[in-house]
C-alpha cells in the first residue's frame, strides 16, 4: 500500500513525515520504503500545442510549437510522441529544466533546434507510461510550473499490511489507525452527497455471499481524461490512469478501501441485476479479455442476459465503460472474503479488489464510497446521479458479537499495568464502543475491524495502542527440565567424531531428480513432490549420496585437489519401503512418524553420508599427498559406531549398480543392512563428472540410536590395566583368496580365547610359494592374563587353538 503524504494529511492535518514514520513501525504498519516519485523535477510547465508538422528529416519526429512563458509566445520543440494534437495541453520541460537523469538544454535534433522537450509520465516520475506525452485536460492554467499544480516529489510511504488488517488497505484506514495511536482527531475532509431518492436498477440477491449491495445510476456522463491532480495521485500509488470514470473508482478504493465497479448502464441488459452463485459450465469474459470458466461457489452479477461481472474479482468485458459511455451504473458491494479468496486462488487472478475483499472491507462504508465516487465523477465526467438502489443483508459471516474480557486477565497476558478504565480508553481511541463493569470489559469493535473478535485480540490491541515497547523484559521461571537429552548429546558427539576424521560438514538441498546413486538398503521407492520447483528436484532424497557427490563435483570442477564431506540428515522413502522393515528389525517401530489419524507418514530416518575424492590434506598439512580411500570412510564410520556403544558393524563385500564391484561393502548389524561404503564404479564416476577413485559411504542412524532410547548409551566401562608383561605372537594364516579377511580374523579371535588382548592384521602375501588361489595373512596377537605371567606353554596352547579354528574355514596356520 502506497500512501502519498499529502493524502494522509487530508485526514490527519499537517503531521510531519518523521512523526508518521516513527509511529508506523511501532503500531505494526511495516514501512517498506519511502518513495519520492518525480523528485528533482524543476522547470516543467504547462503549455498548449499551437501547431505541429513532420520533421523534414525524420519520419518518427515532429516539430511542435507550444505556448511559452506565462502561456504567451511560441516555443519550438522536437518531439518523438504522436498522442496529441493542436489545442492539447502538455508538459514542457524548458531549457534549463531538470527531470530525473538530465538537465535540458537547447539541442539540435536531426538539424532542428529543440527548446527543451515535451515530457511523458515516466520521464517525470509520474508513472510507467512511456507511450506518449502526459496530455492534460483543460483544468490547468497555461505556463504554470508543474510543482505549483501537484506535489510531485513528495514522500510516498509504502507499507506492508498484515493479512488480518484489510482496513489498512486505504489512505483513510491508515490515517485512522495513526490518529488512534497519536490520540489525534481524524478529519472528514470530503462531504459526500446524499443518495438520490429515485429507486434505481432493480437488484435481486440470491446468495448469502454478499452483505451490502449499492448501485447508483449516473447520467450525462462524458468520458474524458482525468484531471492532473487525480492522475498524479494514482501515479504515486502505482495505478495506471484510464479515464475520468475508471480512475475515480480506483481513487476511491485507495482512499476509503472500498472497491467499486462502473458498468456502462446502456450495456446492462434489463436493466436489472441479480447476484448469485455461478453454476458449473458457465463462462464469463473479464475485463482483461480472458474467458473465465466458472464453478459453483464463484459469485457473479447477472444482468438480464447472464453473467456481467465476476463479483469482487473483476468486471465483465460486455458491460465495460468505454469512450462513448453516456450512462454509468456505479456499484459498491461487500463480498464474503472466503468466497473471493477461493475464486481468486482458483483462477490465479489477484486484483486490487480481490486483495481487499479477501481481507474484509468495512461493510458500513460501501454506500459512502459510492457517494464519494459519484461526487468526484460529477467533476471528472460531468456525471449526474439520478437514482440509487441499496440492499443490506446480515449474512452469518458478517455477523459479529460483542467481546467480553476481564481487564485483569488482559493486563496480565501483556504484562502492562493497565486497569479496566485505561484499557477502555485505549480501545475507544481505536473506535470501539466499550462498557466497563468492574473488571469486565464489553467491547463492540468498530465496523472496519474484523480482526477484533476474542479477548486475545483485545489484548493485542491494547498493547499495540499503549506501545509494545512499554513491556518490560523478564526472564520466565524454569517450568520444566530442559537441556539436551543424553541421546541428543550423543548425536553431537557423533558429529565431533566425523569432524575429527578430517571430513568437512555440508548442508545440501534434499531434493533429487530421476536418477540417483542407491546407498544403504536401496529401493525404487520415492517420496515424490506434487508441485516440485524443478524437474531435477521432483522427489525427496532417498539417500544422502547425490547431494554429497554434487558437492564433490562442484569443488572438483573448481580445481580442488581433494576433499571429504559429510552430511547429517533425513532420507525419505514411502511408508511401505523395504528400508522400513530393515530398520524395524533393529529399532522397533518407534522411529516411524504418523499423522493425526494414525496414518503412516513417509519413512524419514536420520542418516549420515560421506563422500571423498583426491588427496586428504594437501600442501601445508600433515600427510600432504595421501589420498582419500574407502578405508578412511570405514574408519570414520567405525568410530561413529563405537561411540554409540555398539559392536563394530560386519562388512560384507557386495556388487551393486554404480559401485566398484571389488571395492564395496555393505555394513550389517545382526545380519541386517544398515550402511554401505565403497568406491564409485569408474563408469558411474565418469557419468557424474567425478574423478576416478571417488569414494562414498552411507550409514542409517536410526538402527543405532533408536535402540538406545532417550537415556543414550550405557556408560563405557574402564578396562583392567594388566601389569604382567604381555606375550606377543605373530602368526600367518594361509587361506583361500575368496575367504574374507574379516572371517579369518574372527576365527583367529575365537580360537585365541580370553587371553587375547589385541589382534592386528599387519601383512598380506601372495606368491608362487603358496597354493594356487591362496594368500597368507599375517596377524599379531597380544596375549595377557591379569592374574599371572604367561609362559611359552600358554602361547603354544593359544596357537594350537587358533590353528584349529582357522582349519575350520579351510585355512591353515603357518608357523
Amino acid at each position, binding site marked *: 500500500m502506497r500512501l502519498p503524504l499529502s493524502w494522509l494529511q487530508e485526514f490527519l492535518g499537517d503531521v510531519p513525515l518523521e512523526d508518521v514514520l516513527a509511529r508506523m513501525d*511501532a503500531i*505494526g504498519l511495516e514501512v517498506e520504503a519511502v518513495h519520492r516519485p518525480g523528485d528533482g523535477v524543476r522547470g516543467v510547465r504547462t503549455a498548449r500545442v499551437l501547431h505541429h508538422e513532420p520533421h523534414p528529416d525524420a519520419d518518427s519526429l515532429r516539430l511542435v510549437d507550444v505556448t511559452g512563458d506565462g502561456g504567451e509566445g511560441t516555443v519550438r520543440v522536437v518531439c518523438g510522441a504522436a498522442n496529441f494534437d493542436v489545442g492539447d495541453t502538455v508538459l514542457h520541460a524548458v531549457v534549463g529544466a531538470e527531470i530525473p537523469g538530465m538537465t535540458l538544454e537547447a539541442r539540435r535534433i536531426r538539424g532542428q533546434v529543440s527548446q527543451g522537450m515535451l515530457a511523458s509520465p515516466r520521464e517525470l516520475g509520474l508513472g510507467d507510461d512511456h507511450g506518449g506525452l502526459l496530455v492534460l485536460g483543460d483544468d490547468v492554467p497555461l505556463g504554470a510550473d508543474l510543482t505549483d499544480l501537484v506535489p510531485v516529489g513528495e514522500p510516498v510511504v509504502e507499507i506492508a499490511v498484515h493479512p488480518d488488517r484489510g482496513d489498512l488497505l486505504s489512505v483513510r484506514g491508515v490515517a485512522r489507525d495513526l490518529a488512534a495511536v497519536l490520540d489525534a482527531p481524524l478529519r472528514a475532509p470530503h462531504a459526500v452527497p446524499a443518495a438520490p431518492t429515485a429507486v434505481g436498477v432493480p437488484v435481486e440477491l440470491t446468495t448469502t455471499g454478499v452483505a451490502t449491495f449499492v448501485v447508483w445510476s449516473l447520467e450525462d456522463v462524458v468520458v474524458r481524461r482525468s484531471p492532473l491532480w487525480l492522475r498524479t495521485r494514482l501515479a504515486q500509488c502505482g495505478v495506471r490512469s484510464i479515464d475520468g470514470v475508471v480512475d475515480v473508482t480506483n481513487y476511491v478504493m485507495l482512499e476509503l478501501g472500498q472497491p467499486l465497479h462502473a458498468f456502462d448502464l446502456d450495456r446492462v441488459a434489463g436493466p436489472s441485476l441479480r447476484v448469485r452463485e455461478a453454476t458449473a459450465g458457465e463462462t464469463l469474459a473479464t475485463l482483461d479479455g480472458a474467458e473465465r470458466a466458472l464453478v459453483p461457489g464463484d459469485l457473479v452479477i447477472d444482468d438480464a442476459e447472464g453473467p456481467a461481472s465476476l463479483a469482487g474479482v473483476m468486471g465483465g468485458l460486455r458491460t465495460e465503460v468505454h469512450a462513448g459511455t453516456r450512462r454509468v451504473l456505479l456499484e459498491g458491494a461487500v463480498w464474503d472474503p472466503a468466497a473471493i479468496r477461493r475464486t481468486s486462488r482458483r483462477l490465479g487472478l489477484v486484483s486490487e479488489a480481490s486483495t481487499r475483499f479477501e481481507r474484509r472491507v468495512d461493510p458500513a462504508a460501501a454506500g459512502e464510497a459510492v457517494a464519494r465516487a459519484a461526487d468526484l465523477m460529477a467533476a471528472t465526467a460531468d456525471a449526474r446521479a439520478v437514482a440509487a438502489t441499496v440492499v443490506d443483508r446480515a449474512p452469518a459471516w458478517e455477523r459479529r458479537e460483542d467481546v467480553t474480557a476481564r481487564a485483569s486477565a488482559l493486563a496480565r497476558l501483556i504484562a502492562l499495568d493497565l486497569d479496566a478504565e485505561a484499557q477502555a480508553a485505549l480501545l475507544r481511541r481505536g473506535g470501539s464502543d466499550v462498557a466497563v463493569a468492574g473488571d469486565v470489559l464489553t467491547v463492540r469493535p468498530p465496523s472496519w475491524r474484523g480482526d477484533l473478535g476474542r479477548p486475545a485480540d483485545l489484548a493485542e490491541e491494547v498493547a499495540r495502542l499503549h506501545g509494545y515497547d512499554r513491556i518490560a523484559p523478564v526472564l520466565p521461571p524454569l517450568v520444566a527440565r530442559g537441556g539436551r537429552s543424553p541421546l541428543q548429546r550423543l548425536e553431537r558427539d557423533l558429529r565431533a567424531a566425523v569432524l575429527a576424521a578430517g571430513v568437512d560438514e555440508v548442508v545440501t538441498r534434499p531434493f533429487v531428480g530421476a536418477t540417483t546413486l542407491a546407498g544403504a538398503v536401496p529401493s525404487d521407492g520415492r517420496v515424490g513432490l*506434487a508441485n516440485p*520447483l524443478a524437474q531435477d528436484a521432483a522427489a525427496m532424497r532417498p539417500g544422502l549420496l547425490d547431494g554429497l557427490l554434487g558437492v564433490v563435483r562442484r569443488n572438483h570442477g573448481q580445481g580442488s585437489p581433494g576433499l571429504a564431506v559429510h552430511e547429517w540428515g533425513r532420507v525419505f522413502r514411502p511408508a511401505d519401503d523395504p528400508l522400513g522393515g530393515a530398520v524395524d528389525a533393529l529399532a522397533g517401530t518407534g522411529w516411524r512418524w504418523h499423522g493425526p489419524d494414525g496414518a503412516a507418514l513417509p519413512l524419514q530416518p536420520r542418516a549420515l553420508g560421506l563422500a571423498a575424492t583426491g588427496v586428504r590434506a594437501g600442501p601445508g598439512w600433515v600427510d600432504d599427498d595421501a589420498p582419500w580411500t574407502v578405508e578412511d570412510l570405514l574408519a570414520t564410520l567405525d568410530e561413529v559406531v563405537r561411540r554409540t556403544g555398539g559392536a563394530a558393524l560386519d562388512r560384507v563385500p557386495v556388487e551393486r549398480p554404480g559401485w566398484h564391484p571389488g571395492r564395496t561393502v555393505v555394513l550389517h548389524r545382526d545380519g541386517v543392512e544398515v550402511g554401505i561404503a565403497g568406491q564409485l564404479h569408474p563408469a558411474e564416476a565418469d557419468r557424474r563428472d567425478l574423478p576416478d577413485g571417488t569414494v562414498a559411504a552411507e550409514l542409517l542412524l536410526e538402527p543405532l540410536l533408536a535402540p538406545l532410547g532417550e537415556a543414550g548409551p550405557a556408560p563405557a566401562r574402564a578396562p583392567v590395566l594388566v601389569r604382567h608383561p604381555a606375550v606377543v605372537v605373530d602368526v600367518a594364516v594361509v587361506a583361500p583368496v575368496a575367504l574374507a579377511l574379516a572371517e579369518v580374523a574372527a576365527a583367529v579371535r575365537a580360537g585365541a580365547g580370553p587371553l587375547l588382548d589385541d589382534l592386528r592384521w599387519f601383512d598380506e602375501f601372495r606368491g608362487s610359494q603358496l597354493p594356487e588361489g591362496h594368500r597368507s595373512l599375517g596377524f599379531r596377537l597380544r596375549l595377557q592374563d591379569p592374574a599371572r605371567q604367561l609362559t611359552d606353554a600358554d602361547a603354544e596352547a593359544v596357537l594350537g587353538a587358533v590353528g584349529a579354528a582357522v582349519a575350520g574355514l579351510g585355512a591353515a596356520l603357518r608357523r
Partner: protein
Amino acid sequence: MEGIDPADVARLREAGLAAFTAAADADALEEARVAHLGRKAPLGALQKGLGALDADARRAAGALLNELRAELTAAHEDRRVALEGAELAARLAAERLDLTGPARRPRPGRPHLLTQVEAEIVDVFAGLGFAVADGPEVEAGRYNFDLLNIPPDHPARGTMDTIYVDEAADVVLRTHTSPVQVRTMLAAPPPLAVVCPGRVYRADAVDATHSPVFTQVEGLLVAQDVTMAHLRGTLLAFARAMFGPDREVRLRPSFFPFTEPSAEVDVSTEDGGWLEVLGAGMVDPAVLTACGIDPDRWSGFAFGIGVERVAMLRHGVRDIRDLFDGDARFLAAF
C-alpha cells in the same frame, strides 16, 4: 734391580697426554686409552715389573707410576667429556629447525556454519531451561496448519507457498517447525518448554535471498501466567547471547495465525539501527485448545528464529546459496 728411570716416566706422560689430546673422536680416544692405559700398555708393563724391585725402590717407583696412571686417566676423562660435549653440540646444530615458518597441521573437518549457529541458538535456550524436540520433515497438513489455526482455505496452504507430497492426503513438506510444537503439546501436559530445530520448506525458487529449504529454531513455553514480558525477556537473553551483551530487542505488532498478540522482533545494531530477526507472540488460545490445553488455565509464548538469517546477519553471508552449495572455500571459513 735399580729403580725406574724418571726419564721413561716423563716420556710415557708426554706420549699419553699427546695421544689423548690428539684423539678426534670417541674411537680414536678409545684406541689411545688402550695404547696408554690398557693392560698391555708400557705403563702396565712397568707396573707389572715393580715386583722385581727392592722394597724401597718399589715404593718410590710404585708411587711414581700410580701418579702417572692417575694423571693419564684424568686426562683421558677430560678428553672424553670434551668429545661428548662436542658431539652433542654438533647433533643439536644439525637438528636445528626453523619454527618461525607455517606449522604443518593435521587437517580437521569443519562443522557447517548452519550447524554451528543452530547449536549455539539451541544452547542458549537449553541454558534457559528449554528441552530440545524433533519431528518429521514430511508432515501431516493437520499438524502443520489446522492445529496452528491456519484453516484449509488459508493462502499459506496454496501450492504457491507450500510444497506438497500428496495434496489429496494433505501431506506437506513442513513449512515451519511449529508442528513439532503441536506434537509436543499433544504428547504431554504443560508446563512445557521446548525448542524445535530443523529443516523447513517453502515453494520459493532458489536465488540470493530465497531457498526452498532452510533451517529454523522455534521455541514454545506453556505454563501458568506466562506473559509477554517473559517473551521479551527470553528473546533479549537470546539476542545478547548471539549478538552481544549490549543489544536490545524491540517488539513490533505483527500478525501470525498461531499467536495473538503477535510481534516482529528486532535486535539493535551497533550503529543504533534495528534488524528484523524473528517472529514471536503469545500462543493463540485457538492453538492451545486444538492441542488439548485449556487456555483459561495455561498461557504461553512461541517464537521462530531463522538460522540462515542469523548466520547471514552475524557472519556477513551475502548469498543464501553459499550455505547449501558446499563450496570448499566457503566451508573453510567457519
